[in-house]
């Protein structure tokens, strides 16, 4: 109930005049008006309603807002129902109208199948400004063909993410059985000698002991009987999965201080060779199933030193050449389980443990 305040206070014995009576009403005040004080058909004009501040105006189900209204701020909450009105801007976002068909300067609605309209042309086939194309073309997004595969003659050798790994044997007149880097993802291995004009032998396996999983192996031997000790190389280029860390394994004779065999590649030897580091713990297959002689040691070069050596490698000079020229075997260091190995799906994981025959060593400069 509203509060009514009289505009004039009479005394009990006061003489009443018409002017006093008028003031009783005219100077009176009505305050604290609540909803029940207002008739249901009161039709209170908009100008009498405060839309600012925290006042919330509830609009009736069939309320029609006429005239030009300015709404500032943001519409919050959710809109129930739909915005309608053909002559209004109810279908605009940032003043751009919606449209069911492709039209200039209009927001295009999806069709009844929740897809874009079929007749979109022009720049609609771009992603980040790059056009799509059904054939290989410069600066185009290549579409799959009708069979859902890449069109032929698209991927070149330069397009493949490849790496090269090298294995070596420095054991005179004796085969060293090695695991080729990249395994199944490698191309046919290439061979060379440390010095020109020397004979070497290379076979897939020479009386080698292998496991039940397929591996890409090579048996290397510097065979030339007329010369001093030299190194035979086999290089395999392969599609790489990791490339984060550089692996250098050495088969080291701690009596003669010679490197009898080596492996250097940006992937662990298990990659492409079964992808199980427990089955292929190192590249020297001769010692997977038989004990390592006392004079031999399998060294995994500490990762930071391996990276330094990797930077120095060239097409002519491999990791084992750089080690022979510049380094000698250093102290055993803690294996921190931080070497990245990847499988054929490029799932990255860290090498968790080393085979019992592997020593994680630093190399020191001579």
């Amino acid at each position, binding site marked *: 109930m509203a509060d009514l305040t009289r505009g004039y*206070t*009479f*005394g*009990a*014995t*006061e*003489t009443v*005049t*018409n*002017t*006093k009576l008028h*003031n009783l009403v005219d100077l009176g005040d009505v305050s604290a008006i609540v909803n029940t004080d207002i008739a249901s058909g009161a039709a209170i004009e908009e100008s009498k309603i405060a839309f600012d501040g925290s006042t919330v105006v509830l609009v009736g189900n069939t309320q029609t807002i006429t005239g030009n209204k300015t709404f500032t701020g943001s519409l919050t909450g959710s809109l129930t129902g739909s915005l309608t009105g053909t002559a209004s801007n109810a279908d605009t976002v940032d003043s751009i109208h919606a449209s069911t068909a492709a039209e200039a300067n209009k927001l295009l609605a999806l069709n009844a199948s929740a897809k874009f309209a079929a007749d979109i042309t022009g720049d609609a086939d771009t992603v980040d400004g790059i056009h799509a194309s059904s054939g290989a073309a410069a600066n185009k997004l290549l579409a799959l063909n009708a069979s859902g595969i890449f069109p032929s003659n698209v991927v070149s050798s330069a397009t493949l993410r490849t790496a090269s790994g090298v294995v070596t044997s420095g054991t005179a007149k004796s085969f060293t059985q090695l695991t080729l880097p990249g395994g199944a993802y490698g191309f046919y291995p290439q061979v060379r000698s440390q010095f020109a004009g020397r004979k070497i032998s290379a076979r897939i396996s020479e009386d080698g002991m292998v496991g039940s999983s397929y591996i890409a192996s090579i048996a290397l031997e510097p065979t030339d009987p007329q010369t001093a000790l030299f190194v035979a190389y086999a290089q395999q280029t392969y599609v790489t999965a990791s490339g984060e860390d550089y692996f250098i394994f050495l088969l080291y004779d701690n009596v003669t201080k010679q490197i009898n065999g080596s492996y250097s590649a940006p992937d662990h030897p298990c990659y492409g060779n079964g992808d199980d580091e427990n089955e292929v713990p190192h590249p020297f297959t001769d010692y997977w199933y038989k004990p390592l002689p006392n004079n031999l040691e399998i060294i995994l070069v500490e990762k930071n030193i391996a990276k330094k050596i990797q930077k120095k490698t060239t097409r002519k000079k491999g990791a084992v050449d750089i080690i022979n020229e510049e380094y000698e075997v250093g102290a055993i260091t803690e294996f921190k389980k931080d070497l990245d190995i990847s499988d054929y799906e490029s799932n990255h994981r860290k090498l968790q443990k080393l085979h019992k025959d592997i020593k994680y060593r630093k190399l020191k400069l001579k």
Partner: protein
Amino acid sequence: MTKPNHAKLQKVKELAKAFKVRYNRNVEVFRALTFNQDNELKEASIHIMSKKGTRFILNEFLSDGLTDYVTITYKVDDTAKTSKYKRYIDAEISVADLIGQEEI
């Protein structure tokens, strides 16, 4: 200015009853009204007699139908005292207080 004519005072029981209702004081009320030449009310003189016999005279002077000022006149120890008020209600409450003090 035309002075109120006390001979024209008329006892008004309804006003006494109203005074009793509002202030719980038993009084007698007399009233005399004075009009100008245009038949407009110029002065209302209300005499309120307490049970002790004291007469409190409220003279309300009007202008254009509204209270201009109000005076209260009464005797204390044979001396007339007069007070002036802007509003009639204030003057009347003062009379009620004075009567109340009499009854203590």
